[in-house]
């Protein structure tokens, strides 16, 4: 099988506005061959979109090498077309013009351009919409234009950046099926596709190889071969088995504390020393909703069913569980989530009880204690947010410090531990002095 593109030990670091450096990709190596669909699957922050942009040549890698047909890539990758999550259609051009724009750089005659555009319009089912402007189309139709525009370029490698995540579930299903139909029919010049997604079913439905990515910094956790025969049926047993196997892998990626196999229920005593735990980027109120959902299920729930039942995507649910676990409100043996005694009394209590408990539990987290120490060392019990951000950056070098401080403040406000004034840009210790 011929190799289309190869990443060798690629890393990428962005410099944030504040000047701090954030590593988003670390040591990525992957190869895309002809006749395959590769999926990059991971939670937000795992750098999968960055990875795709490096493949396309939109952004250069900091280190490592990108090889296209054996040659080092410089500038844009001439072999790829890209489908955007946000469609990226030019609002002032019609559907026809949007697609034809992709052939601007080709040396085709106008009749050849016309023929090629007609062909893809026919292929993706846009007949009759040629003269429409993007703002007149629904999301599903817009993405069809996005796909048509990519196909018309007749490049061997098609990159898909979360192509369906801006669409509703039904539309996304249809589009996915149609994309695979077009790909498998071999009516186009597309030899291979690289799909970026956080949607597990989507990856299993489309990809023949799946790279599970982990976050902070983004790296490849595991490569999974998905040899289910095409066309795939998402209701079949084998499909479901593949999906739940992936769920298990991702659970392990995000919650390495929870063993996937083995009988022992994990009840590790929380380490006060040792690595500082980052806070998952979730809202406390969402986590409370999850706890209530678990309580409704009798205090114990399967994590997949929980995700399904609350209608949140799996990655998000995992973060919520992780947050609850951090606060010792749940335990996560295997793939189930169980309310602890603390968790039970938390759910049973009213808002005042809950706030009091949160105040205690939140206060015992290591990162919170370090922040409190920092604040109480000052005369006014307050420091500029800039300073806290710098310190958090030192404590957790792999996290985005701005985001971490945002979460810290959001949790801190809820549990009445910290406050923050946007006027003075200062974080303060909430000892009740700041009431108006």
């Amino acid at each position: 099988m011929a190799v289309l593109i190869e990443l060798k030990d690629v890393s990428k670091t962005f410099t944030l506005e504040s000047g701090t450096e954030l590593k988003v990709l670390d040591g990525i190596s992957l190869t895309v061959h002809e006749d395959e669909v590769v999926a990059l699957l991971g939670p937000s922050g795992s750098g999968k979109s960055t990875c795709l942009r490096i493949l396309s040549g939109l952004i250069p890698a900091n280190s490592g090498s990108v090889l296209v047909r054996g040659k080092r890539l410089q500038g844009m990758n001439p072999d790829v077309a890209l489908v955007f999550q946000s469609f990226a259609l030019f609002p002032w051009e019609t559907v026809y013009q949007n697609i034809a724009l992709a052939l601007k750089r080709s040396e085709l005659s106008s009749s050849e351009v016309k023929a090629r555009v007609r062909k893809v319009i026919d292929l993706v089912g846009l007949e009759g919409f040629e003269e429409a402007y993007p703002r007149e189309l629904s999301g599903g139709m817009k993405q069809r234009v996005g796909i048509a525009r990519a196909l018309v370029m007749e490049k061997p490698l098609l990159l898909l950046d979360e192509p369906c995540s801006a669409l509703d579930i039904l539309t996304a299903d249809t589009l996915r099926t149609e994309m695979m139909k077009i790909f498998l029919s071999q009516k186009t010049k597309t030899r291979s596709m690289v799909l970026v997604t956080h949607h597990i079913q989507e990856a299993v439905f489309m990809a023949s190889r799946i790279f599970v990515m982990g976050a902070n910094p983004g790296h490849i956790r595991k490569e999974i071969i998905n040899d289910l025969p095409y066309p795939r049926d998402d209701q079949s047993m084998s499909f479901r088995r593949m999906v739940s196997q992936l769920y298990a892998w991702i659970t392990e990626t995000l919650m390495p504390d929870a063993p996937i196999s083995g009988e022992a229920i994990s009840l590790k005593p929380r380490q006060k020393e040792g690595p500082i735990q980052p806070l998952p980027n979730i809202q406390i109120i969402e986590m409370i909703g999850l706890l209530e959902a678990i309580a409704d299920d009798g205090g114990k729930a399967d994590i997949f069913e929980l995700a399904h039942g609350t209608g949140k995507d799996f990655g998000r649910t995992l973060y919520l569980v992780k947050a609850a676990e951090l606060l010792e409100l749940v335990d996560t043996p295997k793939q189930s989530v169980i309310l602890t005694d603390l968790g039970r009394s938390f759910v049973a209590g009213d808002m005042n009880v809950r706030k009091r408990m949160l105040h205690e539990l939140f206060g015992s987290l290591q990162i919170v204690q370090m922040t409190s120490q920092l604040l109480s060392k000052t005369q006014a019990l307050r420091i500029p947010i800039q300073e806290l951000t710098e310190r958090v950056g030192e404590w957790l070098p792999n996290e985005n410090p701005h985001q971490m401080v945002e979460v810290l403040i959001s949790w801190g406000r809820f549990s009445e531990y910290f406050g923050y004034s946007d006027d003075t840009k200062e974080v303060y210790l909430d000892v009740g002095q700041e009431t108006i």
Partner: protein
Amino acid sequence: MKKKASFLKGPFSFSDGILVLVTATIIYGVFSIANESQSDFHPATQIDLSVWRLPYYTLLSAVRGTVAYFISLIFTFIVGYLMARFRLAERWMLPLLDIFQSIPVLGFLPGLILGLVAFFPKTNTGLELAAILMIFTGQVWNMTFSYYASLKSLPRDLDEASRVLGFGIKDRLLHLELPYSAVNLAWNSLLSMAGGWFFLIPCEAMTLGDKEYRLPGIGAYMDVAISQKNPLAIGMAVIAMLILIIAMDFVVWRPVLSWVRRYRLDESISARVDEPLMRVWLRESPMLRLMKLFLRRFFGRLKRPRMKVSVKKFFFGKKILDFLNHLGTRCTGVFQVLGILCLGALLVGMSFKAYYLFMLLIRIPGASWLALWVDAAWTLFRVFLVLVIATAMSVPLGIWIGTSAKRVRIAQPIIQVLASFPAPMLYPLVLGLLFALGVPFSWASVILMLLGVQWYVLFNVLAGAMSISQTLNDAAWLMDFSRWDRWKFLYFPSIFPSLATAWITAAGGAWNASVVSEYLSYQGHVLQTRGLGAKLSSATVSGDFSLFAASLVLIVFIVFSLNRWVWSKIYAITQRRYRIEL
């Protein structure tokens, strides 16, 4: 089928008549200007105050303004692009433009006149060019800033798409950069034209020391009419100017503003807006359609992309062609070097100028500097007063109009026309009224300044009031807010960001207007009050270059520092605190 049917209506219609008239007028105007500028050098043209000559003068002024506008447009595209594209250009040119922006039009006068007239000693070309370039300096800055801001805020996904699609510089310009900036550029063009008309009188009738310069045009006509105390001529000039503004609004701005709506980014299909009559005519004109058809046939046959390439290949060979293409796509380096060279030339030129300026400035004694600062304080006080009055008037009016769709529909076109009307043309009439009321000139000049500046405030407040969130408005009614609470919690916070923008532009405008409103000729004699604008004007008229340079430097210094240290701070606060995210 439809197209055929309207062909049968006949090759000529009423709208065609209008189009032919407009086209003929434009062609005639351009030829007249060319003719005037080719004529032998005669610095002070005799202005004939006969009403019948007025259309001709008006036409000449219109052509001058339009030519200046196109120069502004070209300047905007080049400089705006360079600033948005290259860090180096941005770092140097942005503050430079800020400074240029704070120079009143009159500040460019001596340099332009002396330089260009010396360059074209035989014909009137130099003088014409000087007038056009002065109008240009009254138009260009906000257009350039607007284009630059648009280019800096290109949506990221569209930028990436255009790179993945392999757009070259040309395609990027045509399909991304121009369309994206079109709406803002169109509105700023409208404002720029108004800004250009504002200084029409001093641009066409200038006194520099003992020399008088006058060009045939409506500004010069007004100047002569005022100095000859001819009320009929003054009145006729005002009417002619009004007709010019309304005609431009009808023929150019309304169709353009309606046309650029297709380039707005928001995805929603908004409610139908009435199509301006001019666009309907353009669209339905059988003659134009015939011409378009003909042109398309003609050029359609010529345009064969493949042939073009092979012809190029024939001449250049594959290697050279590849090299050129390579250069086209990755010529950043070449542009960088060119940019540095241009910048270097500019800096050398400017240091010469700075030296010259320095020599002028050291001739000013300390006492004069003190007097200049006192003058500056007077003008500063007037500017401040103008802002207060303009705000007090425009905020209630703007909110009253802006909160009702019906009132907006009626008022907006009227305001658009009135705001474009150059206030200095009304000065004689207003002064007559004020003097009759017994107002002294030092206070009257505040009113004159206000006349030109209040529109900035009203325009912006109106825009702000129109964008007041309907949900918040409903909520305020449901909660039964008192009138005061509605103002305090809804209206004022909603319009505050636009008010801040208004103050910045209005303050700059007021400083510029001080040049014509603190010093002017009225009924044959000169009226003057204490102020920096008056100093600048009188220094120009008396040809005292040292004083001229000193007051100019002071104005630029004050306006620039106010922008940097006061207005931008207020603006930043409003953007942070009163931004609405729903």
